[in-house]
């Protein structure tokens, strides 16, 4: 498929998206809900571009290339729309822990403060962090409803379907059903939703507690790459280490085996490194004893 993007001729294989075509020629398009391991979601609308002949803007992450398509990514219309989307995002959720959104906001000159003047209305009640398990924390006030976690938990990665979007409109939210605590839901604590969350609305408990205590310090952190000791799959792990202690475990998104996704053992079964095997199993969170038993 031949198309032009900002005047550059581009060749894109059928079925590829405008975003992929643009990236192949170095034209940057910002994204928020898009994640390279997931099907395009099309929820945030940060990636909108102009396509000749289209009445509205189209999401570059989702729209497939067509023969002869003429795409513009750098017009005033595109920039104004993106700026507004970012303002709306920032006006509706706590995005301070979403560096990508912050970067976009300053690049586009977004001013979410403009909307604060309107907020005489009762905003949604702050919901606060949900601390219902030892492994990860949910903070709905930071959620931008990008749907990534839902897709990762569902048929695209984990096939567990423990969470979904419930409610609608401004009160839509991520919910395991009846606002159940996670241990009572179908969640298997793989942490793959945490891995894809762009705003720390889902965050590892260790990380969340260290932030709360003012102890989280990225300047003192380094990454150690290793292999998961638990099973024959041999997933590559990235240990984030601060002051010689593991503070979280992730996996590289470009690893073809894991694409960044792990199971509960690789993701959370590492506290023993510090606890020492002397610790009685009763003293460990249940998930961890499970991991130990399996190991």
């Amino acid at each position: 498929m031949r198309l032009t993007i900002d005047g550059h001729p581009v060749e894109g294989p059928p079925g590829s998206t405008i975003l992929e075509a643009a990236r192949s020629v170095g034209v940057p398009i910002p994204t928020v809900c898009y994640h390279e391991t997931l099907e395009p979601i099309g929820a945030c609308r940060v990636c909108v571009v102009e396509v000749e002949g289209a009445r509205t803007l189209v999401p570059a992450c989702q729209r497939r290339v067509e023969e002869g398509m003429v795409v513009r990514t750098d017009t005033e219309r595109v920039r104004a729309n993106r700026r507004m989307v970012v303002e709306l995002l920032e006006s509706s959720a706590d995005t301070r822990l979403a560096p990508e959104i912050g970067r976009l906001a300053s690049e586009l000159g977004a001013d979410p403060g403009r909307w604060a003047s309107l907020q005489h209305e009762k905003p949604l009640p702050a919901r606060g962090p949900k601390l219902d398990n030892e492994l990860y924390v949910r903070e709905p006030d930071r959620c931008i409803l990008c749907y990534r976690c839902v897709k990762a938990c569902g048929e695209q990665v984990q096939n567990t379907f423990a969470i979904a979007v419930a409610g609608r409109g401004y009160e839509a939210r991520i919910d395991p059903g009846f606002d159940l605590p996670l241990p009572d839901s179908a969640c298997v604590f793989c942490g793959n939703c945490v891995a894809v969350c762009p705003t720390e609305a889902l965050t590892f408990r260790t990380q969340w507690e260290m932030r709360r205590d003012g102890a989280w310090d990225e300047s003192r952190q380094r990454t150690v790459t290793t292999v998961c000791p638990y099973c024959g799959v041999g997933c590559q792990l990235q240990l984030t280490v601060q002051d010689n202690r593991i503070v979280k475990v992730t996996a590289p998104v470009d690893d073809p085996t894991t694409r960044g996704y792990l199971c509960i053992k690789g993701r959370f079964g590492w506290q023993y490194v510090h606890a020492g095997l002397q610790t009685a199993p009763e003293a460990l969170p249940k998930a961890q004893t499970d991991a130990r038993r399996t190991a």
Partner: protein
Amino acid sequence: MSQGPVAPAPGRGVDLSRLERMPDPEPDEAVALQEVWREVAPESRRGRRDLLLPALQALQRARGWVSYPALAAVCRELGVPLADAYGVAAFYALLRTEPGPRHIVHLCDDVACMRRGADRLAARLRERLGPPLHGPEHGGLRGLPGSARLSGAHGDGASPGAAASVGWAFSPCLGQCDRAPAALAGDEVWGELTPEGLEAGLRDLEAAGHPEGARGEPDGAAAEAPLLAGGSPGVPGPRAGCMGEATPLLLERVLSGGATTLDAYLARGGYQALRRARELGPGGAMAEVERARLLGRGGAAFPSSRKWAAVAREPGPRYVVCNADESEPGTFKDRVLLELDPFAVLEGMTIAAFATGAERGWIYVRGEYPDAYRSIRRAVEEARARGYLGHHLLGADWSFDVEVRRGAGAYVCGEETALFNSIEGLRGEPRARPPFPTQRGLFGRPTVIHNVETLASVVPILLRGGKWYGALGTARSAGTKLVSVSGDVAVPGLYEVPFGTPIRAILEELAGGAPGGRRIQAVLCGGAAGTFLFPEELDTPLAFETLQAIGGTVGSGALVVLDETADLWEVAERIARFFKEESCGQCVPCRVGTRRQWELVRAIRRQGGRVDGALRALFDDLARVMRDSSICGLGQLAPNALASLVRR
């Protein structure tokens, strides 16, 4: 419900082990579910996610809310994950997932009812039943989940709200604007409601207690009762009229009392159009519709014959869907057609199926239309029993059958792809396009989807010929249009006019103008997604091109009249609240934008309707991103009416 769609089985492979440990549902819930399962063999229920919404509706009817154990039972039966099913249940306004009163009175406070005294009724309800379950004072929030609902898994009596048997809530337009003010109580419609009538209705509800009101279930025996002209007892029949030589075309039977049985329909020329279509053959029938220049009447005004041709080109199986999710505030035309002339809709649909080679059809009726649902369901059953639907219908070498589904309170499900998702048992979120419905529609199959009025228009087109029909109206808008007139007029009602009729003529000659010799201040034209027209614009002919030229739209054909005593910013705020409550929440420009827009209108009202530079800049930026970047028409059109007022 007996026919299994040729659908993927999304439920396979889902681990439901946790659900196996849930307690069984209560007996009344189990009975309600049995009704839904009855027609589908146990071994084929897995993966029939399309049964989810009917099951949720059955539970809602049985006890006024959907409990955890009952939802778990549904999930086990269908193989749907609990979180998914809950996400669907919590999407629809008519379904509740928390214990509460057994019966809920949904009082419409939308524009037409607002103009006709809904506030008096609200005051009465407040006095009688306490604060509403949701409404403007909650910023329109339907209530984020509390914690009461899980503790008593079966709820009844467990929470304070459950103690009262009757509660109430504000509702968006119920499509009864010609009988405003209106309310919906279970499957009963209350129209032209007075405080006394309301009191009587409440007393009935309280006395009826468990489980159903006197009218019973639309699925049950009550469905057999003959339809009165007005549908629900005690509700006046619709007022209707027409103008111009060619009319009445669509209202012919409605104007003489309706044709709600097959015999009545046949006696009035019914099924002659299908006969004609079969003489012409699929291509010939399609050509008639093309010559008729028929544009979709649902709002988007897309050429119908192009949809037909596109679907006919795709490999089968192909489907036809009738969009009867009429929810545009101020609009009730489809309701009247379904209630009083259901076979015409069915015949139009059958012709569309014949022309496109479709084998199955679905009619999706909005949840707030109990009488329309009863009427069209009866019509489908009668047509099937008498060979007008089903295998080799009327001896043809082709078969077509139709299933009737109900919505559960979601304006966005009138968006065609959201409607497909709703039938499939998913959240009613619009899908990305392309692919278009003609390529991948319902259950992923090529689908022709039309509004009720569009399908009904196919019948006169086949009868009188496409050329004749195409000559009616204006250069770019052929045929006749149903117009729902409500608000501050002497005779609110449903009127049929040829395209090109000046709006003023409709308002004055048919609807009798503003009552009491008052002056018309503005007309909300095209519904909440339309625009305000002001007195100097009322000579505009009602046609797609003429309204477009002045920045308006025909939309659904609703005209809500506002006389000089109306506060237009109050109306604007109701519209803004409507969109905020009806956004599906999928995309940021609409999910957050509709909320900000509502806040903005409130800010303007606080300044006495003065739009200063700062608010103007916010509004313009907001309107732009909503129009340009929202996924579907809801978000794209949500700023329209307000923009026409801000411009003023």
